[in-house]
């Protein structure tokens, strides 16, 4: 310890910075997704084999007509990435919402009702923890086939227990808290306690968990796409682009790399935002990552 100087060491990546940067990236991606038809220079499905695998503009052989080059079928990579953001975000967010809804309801019931409900729900959650989520997802996609709806369902189902556990523990902890007891003391009904006292307390934590889960879902989608279990080609998702590109890393590395970059930037942004949010909600960082 230096006895004579106190350097006010503030984190360079403070929560504000994280949330601004992360939120900015996420907002940017969402805007791109929403206005994809306006931004994208080409139809992402328009293929022209004669210009396949053209490198990005800054590389030798690239041209300004296709800033990020073209893919193996001569489709404009920039346009595909722009359109890809739509599905990646859509799948990420909706599957998160689905698993959040499913898991939170289960966790709330288990935590509030206790007894047999708790036993059944939490045992099931435990059992599913013994079932690697990606394996379950692979099994289910293989069974159901790859469509956006199935993918959302599968991703949601494969991770509901994360929410169930969080909400279960929160419910149990909150029910012990004096302010919930106080409400009971004033004659509050279960419904009142849940809506007025439990859920509002959980929202910040759930927001953090959900934010980070979106990131996981986006990654999970790319992993499934890599294993050939994502949305069917030629659908433009980042996972599909990365997966298609990964077999051509040698001849056209930019396809996979740009898709990978897009994924990293978005997921990093979401994680950044989520971590900032976590520090904001829970400054002592008791919530483990993920």
């Amino acid at each position: 310890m230096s006895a004579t100087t106190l350097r006010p060491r503030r984190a360079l990546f403070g929560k504000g910075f994280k949330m601004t940067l992360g939120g900015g990236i996420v907002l940017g991606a969402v805007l791109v997704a929403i206005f994809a038809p306006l931004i994208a220079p080409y139809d992402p499905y328009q293929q022209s084999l004669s210009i396949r695998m053209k490198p990005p503009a800054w590389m030798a052989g690239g041209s300004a007509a296709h800033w990020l080059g073209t893919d193996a079928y001569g489709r404009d990579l920039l346009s595909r990435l722009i359109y890809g953001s739509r599905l990646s975000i859509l799948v990420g967010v909706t599957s998160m919402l689905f698993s959040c809804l499913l898991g939170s309801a289960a966790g709330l019931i288990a935590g509030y009702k206790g007894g047999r409900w708790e036993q059944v729900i939490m045992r099931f959650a435990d059992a599913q923890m013994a079932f690697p989520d990606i394996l379950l997802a692979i099994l289910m996609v293989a069974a159901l086939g790859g469509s956006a709806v199935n993918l959302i369902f599968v991703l949601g189902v494969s991770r509901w227990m994360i929410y169930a556990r969080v909400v279960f523990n929160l419910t149990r902890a909150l029910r012990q808290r004096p302010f919930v007891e106080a409400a009971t003391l004033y004659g509050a009904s279960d419904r009142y306690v849940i809506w007025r006292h439990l859920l509002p307390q959980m929202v910040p934590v759930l927001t953090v968990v959900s934010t980070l889960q979106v990131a996981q879902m986006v990654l999970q989608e790319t992993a499934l796409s890599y294993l050939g279990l994502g949305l069917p080609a030629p659908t433009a998702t980042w996972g599909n682009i990365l997966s298609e590109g990964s077999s051509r890393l040698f001849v056209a590395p930019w396809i996979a790399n740009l898709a990978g970059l897009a994924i990293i930037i978005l997921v990093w942004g979401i994680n950044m935002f989520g971590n900032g949010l976590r520090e904001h909600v829970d400054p002592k960082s008791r919530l483990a990552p993920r």
Partner: protein
Amino acid sequence: MLAYAARRLMLLPISLFLVALVTFVVLRLTGNPVDIFLDVTSTPEQVAALTEKLHLDEPIPIQFLIFLRDLAQGDFGLSLQFNEPALSTVFQRLGGTLQLAGTGLLLAIVLGVILGLVCAVWRDRLADLAISSVAVAGQSMPSFWLGILLIQLFALKLGWLPTSGAGGWRHMILPAVTLATFLLPNIVLITRASVLEMSGEQFVIAARAKGLSRLRVLLTHVLPVSLNPLLSFLGIQIGTLMGGSIITETIFAWPGVGRLMLTSISNRDVPVVEAGVLVIAVGIVLTNLAVDLLQMLIDPRIRRH
């Protein structure tokens, strides 16, 4: 502690039953394995024989009961692909997965704890910022892409390491590194957070008040106590590691259970999938138990309950 372990082990069948149920239901959804495993030209007699052998002519609940009965005897049936007992098919590949997952886990833990400690000690300094940022970036990276990039760099460009397959230790490096990255970033961040949190505990100040040096307090007081949150995390994430090994084994053509699962699912090799899923589930549950026992060993307070 033993009683606890016994009680936990008694829950194992429940977990396994549920896992088996889900697997069974999902696999029955995917269609008739007979159609897959007989050649296009197969005879109706063969179809009937296989149908009977797999009990597919029974109603679904009966099929499940038969499945459970066989399961209790450790009999999953013959692999439709390999024509040998499904369980031994899985066990043949288990060694590869354990080797890979073990190395990856070890790598992730050792590196993660060291880096996390570095972050915590030099909190908010350059080292911390650099490592933490990379860790968050690591969380954000599709690990299979990292695997592919590693092959490109170390196997192709530099030619230092083999691209795929199993062999000597050199074959292990890239897959193990790739698999490690499924957990490493989180281990760094959790270690960092945990060490920082524990550093603020009163007993840390008390230990220093005894005249122990900062480093000694960090290593002998803070670190052991910080391991428990990390262990909890690892317990939960062991499934992620298994999931990661599916992807890693696919990228590196590593002959393990993960890739076996993937091909068996694609090929609807129902016995192997069921055996594999259950073996993985047993592994995860046992690992979790081991983690719990380890936590008890570290923290006597948990032993009581």
